[in-house]
């Protein structure tokens, strides 16, 4: 694509947080009609760079040019006025206000009143132009994650954005929603908008973007002028600084069943109802649970980890009936669990990392005696794991919430694996992680598998499940729509099961 005058140009941007240089002399430009991929591992400085562009952080050095003119952007209001819109990873929406109200925030009204009619007309126009339809009267809390993201995009366009920044927009979407997002983004680019697409999913970047800038350790590590015809391996190497080899899964030698579910059902609690689920996980195999999010995966994980009691059916761990066991009891039998949401159910963000790492076993003899904690043992355990898993943090007493996603996930993994679980249940193990961290997690799973642990991986990323799992079960509306050996499974076949087209029950 020809490159007209850049819509936005960042020159020599440097930004430090204390001793850490988050960005160092970064140059970046986007032309009208161009989709620029901004690639980099977690902590490479992508988000910081975009926050500088959006006025959230003031750069220590460097300048920003908008259509060739130097611009000072010191607040999000400046950025909006300059035509820059941002869709953050965590949406900036008020859940209890309506779609229309979220759009109209900060927009001056008409004769002292909110201009509802004008807002509706503008929304209809944007919807028509880019195929982004939304019901303006619904509260945001009633929207799906995909719809909320659509609202964020519409919000930026509503304010007349000419440059749209999307921070890892596909991390929260189901595969079918990703296609919709991409076609909307292509339509916007075709109409002359500039788009910065931040991601570390290389296949998406290759499919969507016209050009890429790759960051590593806060610096520009390289640029890719033709992403569609550049291999993922070459881009991954730019991001990581070294070659990335996908882990090889050897043939499985499954042993006895370590976890068995027989006719597990739940009724009308919050979330999806489970309907007659039967599963077996054997020692030394990885079972994948695929499915569009919201089809009962969370309920299943909760039943297996003892958080939710099933209304019918039987669950056994190593032959022992555990249907009515509490989380602590199933854990004592050797069940390890890595929950879906690291920040809320995984650990306590305001406590030191060390405390979070021993939390599930705080009452065991290893960490407490006679009703008192053993702080030295807790600290020593955390220090040991931090070293073993290369968890990047200032120390075991760091507030857990201050760690990056990849390091948190490593910490959670360390916490479970340190006790040699017989069964491990993991939800979304690599969501939001970069290639290096994901690779590390996968290797650990395969190690555990070789040691005879039975692993259940609940995920939405089919490519990941296909690489990792020996068998893949697909959940649809609370039951198992089908189970495939991964040798026979393809994305297409799994997709059919996931949408309920194929399958029994």
């Amino acid at each position, binding site marked *: 694509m020809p490159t007209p005058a850049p819509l936005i140009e960042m020159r020599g941007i440097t930004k430090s947080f204390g001793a850490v240089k988050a960005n160092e002399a970064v140059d970046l430009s986007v032309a009208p009609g161009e989709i620029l991929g901004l690639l980099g591992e977690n902590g490479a400085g992508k988000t910081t760079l975009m926050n500088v562009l959006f006025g959230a952080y003031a750069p220590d050095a460097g300048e920003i040019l908008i259509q060739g003119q130097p611009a000072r952007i010191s607040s999000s209001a400046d950025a909006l006025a300059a035509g820059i819109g941002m869709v953050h990873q965590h949406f900036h929406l008020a859940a209890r*206000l309506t779609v229309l109200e979220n759009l109209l925030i900060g927009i001056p009204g008409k004769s002292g009143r*909110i201009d509802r009619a004008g807002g509706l007309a503008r929304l209809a126009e944007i919807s028509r132009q880019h195929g982004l339809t939304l019901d303006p009267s619904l509260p945001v809390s009633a929207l799906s994650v995909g719809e909320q993201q659509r609202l964020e995009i519409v919000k930026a366009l509503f304010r007349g954005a000419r440059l749209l920044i999307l921070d890892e927009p596909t991390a929260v979407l189901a595969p079918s929603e990703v296609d919709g997002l991409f076609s909307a983004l292509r339509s916007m680019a075709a109409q002359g908008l500039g788009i910065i697409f931040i991601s570390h999913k290389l296949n998406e970047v290759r499919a969507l973007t016209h050009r890429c800038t790759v960051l590593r350790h806060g610096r520009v590590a390289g640029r890719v002028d033709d992403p569609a015809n550049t291999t993922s391996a070459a881009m991954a190497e730019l991001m990581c600084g070294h070659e990335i080899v996908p882990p090889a899964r050897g043939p499985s030698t499954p042993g006895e069943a370590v976890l068995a579910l027989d006719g597990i059902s739940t009724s009308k609690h919050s979330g999806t109802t489970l309907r007659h689920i039967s599963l077996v996980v054997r020692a030394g195999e990885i079972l994948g649970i695929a499915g569009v999010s919201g089809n009962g995966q969370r309920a299943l994980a909760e039943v297996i980890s003892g958080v939710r009691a099933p209304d019918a059916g039987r669950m056994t761990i190593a032959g022992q009936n555990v249907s009515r066991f509490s989380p602590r009891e199933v854990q004592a039998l050797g069940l390890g669990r890595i929950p879906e949401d690291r920040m809320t159910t995984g650990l306590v963000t305001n406590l030191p990392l060390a405390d979070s790492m021993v939390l599930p076993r705080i009452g065991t003899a290893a960490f407490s005696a006679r009703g008192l904690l053993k702080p030295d043992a807790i600290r020593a355990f955390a220090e040991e794991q931090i070293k073993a898993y290369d968890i990047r943090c200032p120390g075991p007493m760091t507030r857990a919430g201050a760690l990056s996603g990849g390091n948190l996930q490593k910490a959670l993994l360390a916490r479970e694996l340190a006790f040699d679980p017989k069964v491990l249940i993991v939800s979304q193990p690599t969501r939001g992680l970069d290639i290096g961290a994901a690779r590390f997690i996968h290797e650990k799973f395969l190690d555990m598998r070789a040691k005879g642990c039975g692993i259940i991986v609940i995920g939405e990323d089919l490519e990941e499940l296909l690489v990792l799992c020996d068998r893949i079960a697909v959940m649809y509306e609370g039951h198992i729509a089908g189970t495939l050996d991964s040798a026979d499974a393809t994305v297409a076949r799994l997709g059919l099961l996931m949408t309920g087209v194929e399958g029994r029950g």
Partner: protein
Amino acid sequence: MNAVFEQIFQVGFLAAIIRIATPLAFATLGEMFSERAGVLNLGIEGIMLLCAMTGFTATSLSGSLWLGVLVAVLTGMLMGALHALFTVALGLSQHVCGIGVTLFSSGLAYFLYRLIFGQQSVPPSIKGFQTLPIPVLSDIPVLGPAVFNQFALVYMAILAIPLAAFVLYRTPWGLSVRMVGENPRAADSAGVSVIATRFQAVILGGALMGLAGAFLSMAQFNAFTFGVVSGRGWVAIALVVFGRWDPWRSAGAALLFAFVDALQLRMQASGLGHIPYEAFLMLPFIFTIVAMAVMSRNAVAPSALLKPFRREER
């Protein structure tokens, strides 16, 4: 029993409800604006007391009732600004600062009152607001004398309810207030100043608390005593929850509380004299607790209530 009943439900009963509800309505609306913006103002009890004092003093010294009201409103705004300074600008704990504001305001009110009026055997009083019958409307049977033969401040409270609803739901500023109380980061990224909006809401809330205080010392009691507020501020905080942070519901909650309060006053005065009057005094508060327990289970507070907002946070 029938006689007791008749004695309670006289025409004057309705008028009493309206009069008791007025300061509660002002205070509840004031607290509601503050909380919708994400700032709990536990200073309300003390702010009302201080405003009752300053308004009374200004009127007492100048002889002008409306000057007194103005002074009370300005006092409320000032104390609101003080609370906002601590909780919004400095991001300190809203609970601690609110209690601090209440203790400080109460102490200041007592101190200034003693300083200005000294210790008198008969407490000073003023000629407070007189009822202002609205022509034609006040001739409507039952409703007329109860609603349209009231103090000017009562009419202001009645008008304040739809006005508050209009401001909150129909104006860009009201939308900013609601957004800032739900998700300040969203408001910030839309170019709305979270700090300024919260300041404005808390100060507006303080002004309304000032009106509540002015009503007590200048229309209801026509004197300032240390017990002039006696928990009405705390009640308003409960009524905001009961009213689910909505102007109409909050005003309704104030009216309901006033009904129970008026009822217990009548019961005290009626033939039920063999029951200690303290038992009746408890009724509105028991009602509040029960109502809160029953009605507030589904109430959802503004998501960002109690949460200070800081911009550059990693």
